[in-house]
Structure formats: C-alpha cells, structure tokens
C-alpha cells in the first residue's frame, strides 16, 4: 500500500477534479483512497458533464477536468495535458427475454443505422427491434458509433453519425439500463462496469464483453476516461495523478473499469 508512494506523506492542499459524471464515481473512490494515505490533502470531486470538465480545465478553475469522451481536434488545441486514467468497455445489451446471444459488428451497425429492423433477421424472434441510444455528444455513444462504424467519414472526411432517427435516446447509463431491462425487444449499450442481471450483455464477434477481454484488446468497444489539465500541477495534484496511475490506483480502477497499465 502506502509504501509505494514515498512522496505523498506530509502533503497538504486541495485538489479539485470536475467534469464527467461517468468518471465521477471512480474519481470519488480514488480520492477517498488517496485521502486515507494523505489526510491533509482535500480532494473535491465535482460533476457537471464532460463539457464542464473541458471548460474547467481550459479556464483553470479545476486542477483536473475530467472527460469520458475523446477530445475534438479543436478542443485538443486548448488543453495542454491529457491523461488517460482508465478505460471503460461498452457492452451491447438486450432485454433478458431476448434469445439472441451474439452479433457481429456489422449486424450491430445495420441495427443501429436502421437497416435491420426485425430480430428475425439476426436469428431472433419475429419482433421489431427497438434501438436505444445515448444522447448526442455522449462519450459512450462516441466510442460505440466509431467502433461499430455507425459513424463513418463522408467524402469530405468529416465523421457522420448515422444512428437511426427511430432510436429511443436516454441520457445516462442508468436510464439506458432501466429502459432496456423494462422494454421488450430493445437493444442498447452501456458501460461494462454497470452491467448486472437486469439486462443481458451479448457477445460481439463472438467475444464476451468483459474487462479482461477489453484489456487484452479482443473486445473492441471502449472509451477512455481522461483527466485534463492546463496548469502546472500542484504537488498535491501531481501526487494524486501519480497515485491514480500507480499499481494501487489502477487496482481501484480495475474494480469496475479497465486499467490502463
């Protein structure tokens, strides 16, 4: 434990982390473990969304802004430092009654772009498919549509998200999970960390959606959790970042998400 962190003791100060609500629970766990070792450091975790995280980093009102989506090119230009602290696998989920157990990336693409609209076309019962997606801008959606090619570059080279207009849209992991769990014939996608038996996670290209498979690179759909900073890190902030990236920090990450080292 604490011995791997020689610089931490005697540290004081306050570190503010603000932004993505998806990263927030993880940050909170990391912070409380860190504060157990460094009782004189206060770490404040704020939500608000990735947009707020990016803005907080840009305007230097937080030590770290957090984001659960990749930065756009123009955003990258305004942020000095970007740290990937964890990865989050994205599982494709169906309502538990569905008999389908495996889909290829292409089938998923056809479903989410509205080309396939009935479960019987992919080996299930004869029932219309109800697509559940996340809101525009969501990191989970960003990662999902990119890897499944639901989003493709057009002739001009800009990515176009072709998610069907007939998709139900839910604004959070919890909402997608509850929707899929309670609505027959649905398909959606949520963070692997949030999986439980109310929904059924399927294999993609024959690979189970597990943290191990993401880590091994076999399961493809994942997104990064980012810490962003535009300032010279304070000693306390630096120590917190070091702690997160240390073996001990990554062990905490591994409880629900995918470590980066």
């Amino acid at each position, binding site marked *: 434990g604490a011995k791997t962190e020689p610089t931490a003791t005697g540290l004081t100060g306050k570190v503010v982390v603000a932004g993505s609500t998806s990263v927030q629970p993880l940050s909170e766990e990391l912070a409380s473990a860190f504060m157990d070792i460094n009782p004189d450091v206060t770490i404040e975790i704020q939500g608000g969304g990735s947009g707020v995280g990016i803005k907080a980093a840009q305007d230097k009102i937080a030590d770290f802004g957090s984001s659960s989506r990749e930065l756009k090119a123009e955003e990258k230009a305004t942020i000095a430092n970007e740290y990937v602290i964890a990865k989050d696998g994205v599982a494709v989920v169906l309502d538990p009654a569905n008999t389908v157990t495996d889909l290829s990336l292409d089938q998923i693409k056809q479903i989410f772009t509205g080309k396939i609209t009935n479960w019987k076309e992919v080996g299930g019962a004869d029932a219309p498919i109800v697509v559940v997606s996340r809101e525009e801008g969501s990191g989970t959606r960003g990662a999902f549509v990119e890897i499944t090619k639901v989003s493709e570059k057009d002739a001009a080279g800009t990515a176009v998200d072709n998610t069907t207009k*007939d998709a139900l849209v839910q604004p959070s992991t919890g909402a997608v999970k509850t*929707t899929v769990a309670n609505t027959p014939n649905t398909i959606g996608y949520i963070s692997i960390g949030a999986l439980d038996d109310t929904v059924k996670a399927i294999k993609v290209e024959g690979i189970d959606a597990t943290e191990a498979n993401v880590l091994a690179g076999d399961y493809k759909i994942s997104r990064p959790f980012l810490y962003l900073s535009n300032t010279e890190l304070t000693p306390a902030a630096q120590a917190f970042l070091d702690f997160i990236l240390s073996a001990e920090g990554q062990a905490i990450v591994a409880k629900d998400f995918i470590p980066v080292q």
Partner: protein
Amino acid sequence: MKAYEKIVEKLIIVCAIISTISVVLITVFIFRSGLPILMNYGVIDFIFGTNWSPTNGNYGILPLIAGTLSVTLGALIIGVPMGIASAIILSEILPGKVARVFKSAIELLAGIPSVVYGFFGLIVLVPAIRTFILPIVQLVVPKATTTGFSIFAGAIILAIMILPTIVSISENSIKAVPREFREASLALGANKMETIVRVIIPAAKSGIIASIILGMGRAIGETMAVILITGNMPKIPGGPLDSVATLTGTIAMEMGYADATHQQALFAVGIILFMIIMLLNAIAQISAHGLRGNN
C-alpha cells in the same frame, strides 16, 4: 422613522432592480451564447429544419418544437382541469381539516426531485402505457404501436408535476373571493355549482390564469423527468403515443457533453424556447382578456 422608511423603500426598489437585473442578465446570457450560431446557420433553417443531429452539423429544431408543444399541451389538457377541480374541491367543498391534509399532500409533490418522477415514469408509467393503453388504442387503430416512451407518458408526468403550482395558487385566489359574492349569488337562488362557475371562478380568474401560466412554465422548463420518458426521438410526432424529443430535454441532455459549437446550438434552442414561452404567455393573456369581456 422617516429615514428608516426611506431606506426600506429604497431597499424594496433595490430588490425589484435585483430581480429585474437577474432576469435581464439571464436573458442576455442566453442570447449572447446562442445568437452567433443562429445567425450563421440561418434562423429559418434552424427553426424549420427537420434534422437535429448536432454531431453531424445539422441543427433543425422543428421536431423539438413539435415535441415541446405537444407534451406541454398534453400536460395542460390533463393537468389544468385536475388542478382547478382540486382547487375548487379544496376551497369550496372539503371541510377545513381534510382540505389541509389534501393540500399538504399536493404541495409535497412540488418537492419531489424530477429524476424521481422520471424513474417512476420509466419503470411504472411507460410499461403501463405499452401493456394497458396500447391494446385499448389498438381496438380503434389496429396498426398502432408504441414502446410506451411517448408524448402521452410525458404529458401525464408533467401534469402531475405542475399540479402543486396550479392547485396552490388557484386555491389561494378562490379563497380570497369575498364571502359577499357567494352570499349574493346564493341569495338569488343560484346553487353552489352556479355560484362557483359564474361568480367565484370569474372573480378568482387572475390568480387561476397566473397559476396556469406558471404551471405551463414549469411544464416547458422541466427536463429531467421528460428526458427519461419521452424517448427523445427528434422526429415530428404523428400521434400521442409517438416518441418525441423536447427543446428543454435536448438542452439538458446534450449540454453536459457538448463541445463548443454544439453548446452554442443548444443556447440557440434556448432562445427559441424563450420566444415560444413568450408567445404562449401572450396567447394565455389574450384569451384571458377575451374572457373578461364576456363575463
């Protein structure tokens, strides 16, 4: 004494100015943040465009406008009669003690966070629409389908959410109608119903209308509950069982992750929302004045 009064009166003015300034500040804030994209993208394209997909650079909000109007209208159709009926029952019919309990219970609804309404709608109401309402509708329109995520679901939940506003404010103004008016009406042989409908409600009209306008504001502005149950499908709806996305829901849902241009677009949605509420208020005021002529 005099000096003290002057100071307090100045303070009152200061308070009025503060509230006016906050109103102005927010208005300016919304317009400053949203106007640039509205101008660049074109007001007409923005308002009448039917494709909302900001990540692809399409900012047509007609479907969102349709969604907001249909859900709000639905909420008012359901909520206003319920609210006014409750206000009447509370102030004119139920005995004092029972009325107080009923009223406190309704006021309690105001303090429940909207996420809770949202999850209630998501887990109870949406499946109920799918399993109970849909079969009934199918008796008439056999081809009807719905996932339950619908205008109807949104309208019901919003109707419940605006009840406290409508009930409490209406009830206060009904109660404030002087007893002389009731007596005069009853003494002419009018029954209680006629007295309520022809004398009390018209006399309390200003308060009732204010309550409806505030309730409408709440319905339009409500987000967390709506985004969980209307399906957020930016398509122009064909019926009350279709999914819709609303202006406010879209703002709330997408703002958290939005990048700079997307955020601007969401503020532009805010501007349009501003206009729509202005329009609806004007309609409400005008219809109220129209009524006055007839009474």
